[in-house]
């Protein structure tokens, strides 16, 4: 039930009461009714309603509508619609723009694909099991309706239970995605550690380790690497590309970065996967730097190795499956991830923060002829960075687990209550309707049973002046008492509302979120 509509209806009913008063020839009362009740009280009521969340019941309505759609959009119901973590996990998980609204199943299927095709089987066995458990959960929740624990009953309880289940499943999936990311990092690290089998792979290692060593401050380098879709890849694949025009004519040379996380770089605007802020175009220096790199590419000693790396870099590989190699860009046949050019790592032109000495050709030569210690150093650097990344993802995974456990503990009824407390659109107690109908019938029956005396005399025309005379003569004390009562009531209400605000302003109270929000609004 919507509070806003209830308030408007109450105002209309009070106006109708004033009309009834006029019908009853009590004009003064009608005027007072409109002035006092409609003008004063309902302004206060509506003001109060406006302070609450979701005064119009729009949120609950939207929740129900989305539940009916049963889509992925249902996830964002209880949270603010653009919660950054969820979005980022979504982006991380799909590794490609989610095409269908039913992204949940999409990511799950993809997850299972990855699990099946993975090289690190034993670790992914658990994940497959978890995914299967997820599936079972979903089947349960789709089929088993009668086992709900909600005592509230009705469609709403079922809907909320289902929503709760879906959120839990999504939390688990997100956690798994975090694990997968971590394993990705580990896999890349393994690639660094193992000596390459062929020249091509060594080239790939070399450049990737160059990327690692050159971007030590770049804790999110892996994420950027994974996130950066093909235009950036194409731009950074200058190294072995026989067509340098591609880099120059690259459609989107502007790199977007997060104002809070400079390591986040994406070729197109969007939101930061870490904090959800809007990405801003990076400064000109990065762009210029990238172009400088390109120039260096055409003139640097890398051109000497161009014939060798040209054949290497025209091969596109999958970041997840290094055995997949294709001559052109596309998608991995195993997992569907966008293929990246093997020779040039995606992160190079964007992550390379060094000067002219640290250009790609030098890095490549150094790594291809690097001593063992040098590589060890690089690997250590990469390892440190990977550790940070792992900490990052594991922290997020832990949070997700906690959320899932919390949601498991929370019964659907309690969840509904929480939503209800947030949403200000209240649910009706079941017995109230019956009781009130009985009371109404009883009252109407009494009214109809009793033979009321009737005196058809009309009131005087000067009723209001008679009332004024009475108020100021016989009922003077009552009138003054009412006046002081109003004064005391208004003052009390203002003080009740204001003292709290001052206490909050002093900042010592452990204010609730709502209080802080309210304070912000007031300020």
């Amino acid at each position, binding site marked *: 039930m919507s509070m806003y509509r209830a308030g408007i209806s109450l105002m209309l009913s009070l106006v109708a009461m004033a009309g009834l008063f006029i019908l009853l020839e009590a004009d003064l009362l009608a005027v007072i009714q409109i002035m006092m009740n409609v003008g004063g009280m309902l302004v206060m009521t509506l003001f109060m309603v406006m302070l*609450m969340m979701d005064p119009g019941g729009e949120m609950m309505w939207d929740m129900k509508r989305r539940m009916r759609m049963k889509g992925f959009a249902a996830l964002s119901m209880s949270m603010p619609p653009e919660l950054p973590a969820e979005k980022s996990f979504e982006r991380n998980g799909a590794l490609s723009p989610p095409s269908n609204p039913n992204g949940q199943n999409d990511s799950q299927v993809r997850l299972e694909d990855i699990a099946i095709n993975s090289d690190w089987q034993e670790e992914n066995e658990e994940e497959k099991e978890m995914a299967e458990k997820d599936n079972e959960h979903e089947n349960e929740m789709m089929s088993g309706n009668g086992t709900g624990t909600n005592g509230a009953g009705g469609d709403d309880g079922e809907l909320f239970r289902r929503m709760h289940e879906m959120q839990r499943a999504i939390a688990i999936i997100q956690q798994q995605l975090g694990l997968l990311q971590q394993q990705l990092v580990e896999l890349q690290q393994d690639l660094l550690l193992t000596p390459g089998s062929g020249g091509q792979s060594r080239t790939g290692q070399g450049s990737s380790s160059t990327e690692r060593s050159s971007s030590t401050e770049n804790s999110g380098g892996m994420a950027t690497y994974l996130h950066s879709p093909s235009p950036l890849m194409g731009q950074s694949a200058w190294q072995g590309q026989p067509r340098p025009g591609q880099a120059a004519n690259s459609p989107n040379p502007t790199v977007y970065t997060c104002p809070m996380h400079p390591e986040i770089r994406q070729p197109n605007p969007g939101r930061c996967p870490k904090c959800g802020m809007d990405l801003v175009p990076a400064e000109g220096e990065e762009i210029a730097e990238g172009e400088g790199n390109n120039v260096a590419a055409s003139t640097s000693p890398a051109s000497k190795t161009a014939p060798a790396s040209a054949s290497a870099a025209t091969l596109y590989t999958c970041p997840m499956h290094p055995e997949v190699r294709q001559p052109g860009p596309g998608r991995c046949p195993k997992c569907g991830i966008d293929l990246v050019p093997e020779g040039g790592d995606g992160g190079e032109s964007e992550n390379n923060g060094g000067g002219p000495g640290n250009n790609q050709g030098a890095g490549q030569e150094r790594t291809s002829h690097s001593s063992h210690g040098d590589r060890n150093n690089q690997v250590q650097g990469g390892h440190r960075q990977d550790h940070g990344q792992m900490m990052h993802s594991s922290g997020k995974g832990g949070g997700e687990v906690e959320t899932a456990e919390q949601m498991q503990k929370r019964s659907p009824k309690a969840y509904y209550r929480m939503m209800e407390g947030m949403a200000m659109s209240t649910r009706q107690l079941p017995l109230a309707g019956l009781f009130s109908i009985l009371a109404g019938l009883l009252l109407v029956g009494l009214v109809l049973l009793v033979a009321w005396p009737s005196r058809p005399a009309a009131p005087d025309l000067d009723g209001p002046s008679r009332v004024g005379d009475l108020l100021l003569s016989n009922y003077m004390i009552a009138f003054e008492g009412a006046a002081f009562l109003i004064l005391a009531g208004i003052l009390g209400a203002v003080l009740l509302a204001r003292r709290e605000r001052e206490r909050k302003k002093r900042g010592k109270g452990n204010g609730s979120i709502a209080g802080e929000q309210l304070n912000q609004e007031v300020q």
Partner: protein
Amino acid sequence: MGGPGLVAYLVVGAVMFAIGIFGTLSQRGAIMVLMGLEIILNAAILNLVAFWRFINPGDYSPQVFVIVAMTIGAVEMAVGLGIVLMVYRKKGTQNIDKFSEMKE
């Protein structure tokens, strides 16, 4: 004078009272409960005015009584809203089921 008789007003008042009881009992939001109380009060006032009009229209004391009752209703609404606002700030909800403890 043709208008509706006393019974019609009393029936309207009874129905309004029942609606007010329903709102008071069924809603969990404190403001909704206050709105239900307001409807109940208005039903009582309507009954008062109807009785004045059809039983003793020459005496204007009931109108004074109605004015005092409206005043009390307004004050009750103001104080109730103030309390709800305070509790809402403290607890972040206006669900009266959560107001069960008055301490803190």
